[in-house]
């Protein structure tokens, strides 16, 4: 053991305390904006407009939620988002597996050529317009296939899964092959059960991506009964930007009527974010695992 100078010790204690406090402040900063919308969604429009809402709901009420539920459109959008997310994730996982498994087999002939063929699409990405023209000419406008098909798999996630599969011991597969199992059987009954952790992580990555995406919906979905939650929110928020622009041009009266009240917007945001918040504690460890596997290059 070594003897520590008491002044040193005092300093290091103070340093530790400062560290804990700082991290606490940072985490509250990460959390506060969310807290703010929750609080706003339960406050009166008057209190929000007057800037009185900060830490607790002012003039507590659930009017915003009631009005959203009355509207009903939000439920349609929520249902659409769920469909887009579930089907999208399922398709992603099927395609990712179909790509990752064969490409993880070193014996596969032409493997290097196929890998180059795929990696090139990571390096040279195409712009918005050619993709848009393609989707349009395939007749996919106003269909969720316009969202799903161009995003059937993410090359990056596919490589994460391929790396994971390469890490599995070869003997398992060999003994199954000797027992007469074909490639499909080996994949479904032997490899996939071993891939559970990475499957969990990747399907969560995909699902959160689908849940959160709005740009592709903005491009390809114009029918209002097909719109998703994020697109609805995008339109609500766009109104604020418009009103910023029109400020002082004398047209406030008109805008006031068209504008979605802050409280309703806050409530819509809360509804959109709740599923993620509920699932979050369960998802978190899978995500971290996924990132770590992804960072180990094969």
């Amino acid at each position: 053991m070594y003897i520590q100078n008491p002044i040193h010790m005092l300093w290091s204690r103070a340093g530790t305390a400062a560290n804990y406090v700082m991290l606490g402040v940072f985490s509250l900063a990460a959390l506060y904006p969310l807290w703010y919308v929750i609080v706003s969604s339960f406050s009166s429009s008057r209190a929000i407009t007057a800037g009185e809402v900060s830490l607790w709901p002012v003039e507590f009420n659930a009017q915003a939620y009631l009005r959203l539920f009355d509207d009903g459109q939000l439920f349609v959008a929520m249902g659409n988002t769920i469909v887009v997310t579930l089907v999208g994730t399922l398709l992603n996982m099927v395609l990712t597996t179909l790509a990752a498994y064969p490409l993880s087999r070193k014996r596969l002939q032409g493997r290097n050529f196929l890998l180059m063929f795929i990696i090139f699409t990571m390096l040279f990405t195409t712009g918005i317009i050619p993709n848009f023209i393609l989707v349009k000419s395939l007749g996919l406008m106003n269909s969720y296939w316009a969202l799903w098909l161009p995003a059937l798999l993410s090359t990056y996630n596919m490589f994460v899964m391929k790396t994971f599969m390469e890490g599995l011991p070869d003997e398992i597969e060999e003994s199954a092959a000797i027992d007469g199992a074909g490639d499909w059987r080996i994949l479904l009954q032997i490899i996939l059960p071993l891939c559970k952790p990475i499957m969990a992580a990747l399907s969560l990555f995909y699902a959160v991506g689908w849940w959160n995406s709005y740009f592709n919906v903005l491009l390809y979905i114009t029918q209002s009964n097909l719109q998703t939650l994020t697109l609805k929110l995008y339109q609500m928020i766009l109104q604020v930007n418009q009103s910023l622009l029109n400020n002082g041009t004398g047209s406030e009266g008109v805008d006031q009527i068209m504008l979605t009240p802050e409280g309703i917007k806050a409530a819509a945001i809360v509804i959109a974010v709740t599923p993620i918040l509920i699932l979050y504690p369960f998802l978190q460890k899978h995500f971290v695992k996924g990132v770590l596997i992804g960072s180990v290059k094969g």
Partner: protein
Amino acid sequence: MKDQRSTFRHRFILDRHLYLMLLPVILFYFVFKYAPMVGEIIAFKDYRLGDGIFGSPWVGFKHFESLFGSIDFWRVLRNTLVLNVYSLVFGFPVPIVLALLLNEVRKEWYKRTVQNLLYLPHFISWVILGGIFIAILSPSTGIVNTVLVNVFGIEPIYFMADSRWWPVAYTVSGIWREAGWGTILYLAAMASIDPQLYEAAKIDGASKLRQMWHITLPGIRSTIAILLVLRMGSMLDVGLEQTLILQNQSVLDVADVISTYVYRVGLQNMSYSYTTALGLFQSLVSFILVVSVNRLTRAFGERGLW
């Protein structure tokens, strides 16, 4: 020679199920990755909907010439670079500092709680984060301006509508969403540093700060290098969803970047060929950046991306 060919065919037949699995995958890459690359040729044509990609007339470099001659092009290129440089300079070190702080926390429950809270914004859509951000910064109702006005007696600041403040708000919102998430790789790298190094340093009387400086930071150097290099490769790529939700007409002079410009002018005004030329320019520069940055990584003795 003949022997080789026959073994090739033999093994192809043996592995036919693997190739069968790859069939939809290859089809996907052809249709949705390579076909749009072919579609880029409309940058050299006057694309007309009725004539299609191949029927439209060739015009050579006309669109590139008008692109490089336009003020808009230089404006969006500048904005793209400026916003990227801001995010790099101010955003890149934040997760490293956070990871250093987190690494010193000995109480597991506290560390886990902080981490969970810091990761959270990463999982929330830009639409939602943007909406929250705009609400908080609003000059009339936002909490930030309420504090500024009531506590400091400053005039309310139009953060989202003022060209001087918008880039700040943009950068901060990016840091807010991704900084915590960015700590994961650094923390993993820190966890693999040999604890004996710290023991030795302690016996030599090194303070916590000195240990950070002489052991932790060198220990994660290669992680920092790789992530920095990766980041450099996407200098012409500004997050489309983030920018689109945060920008508005009054700040377009600083907030309009290549991708939002392509979306606005290309799709909403239907100037397909002109904006495809811009997109192609972006793709080419990004391609060159990524490839040369990978060369550079390998030249420095780090493992490259391929």
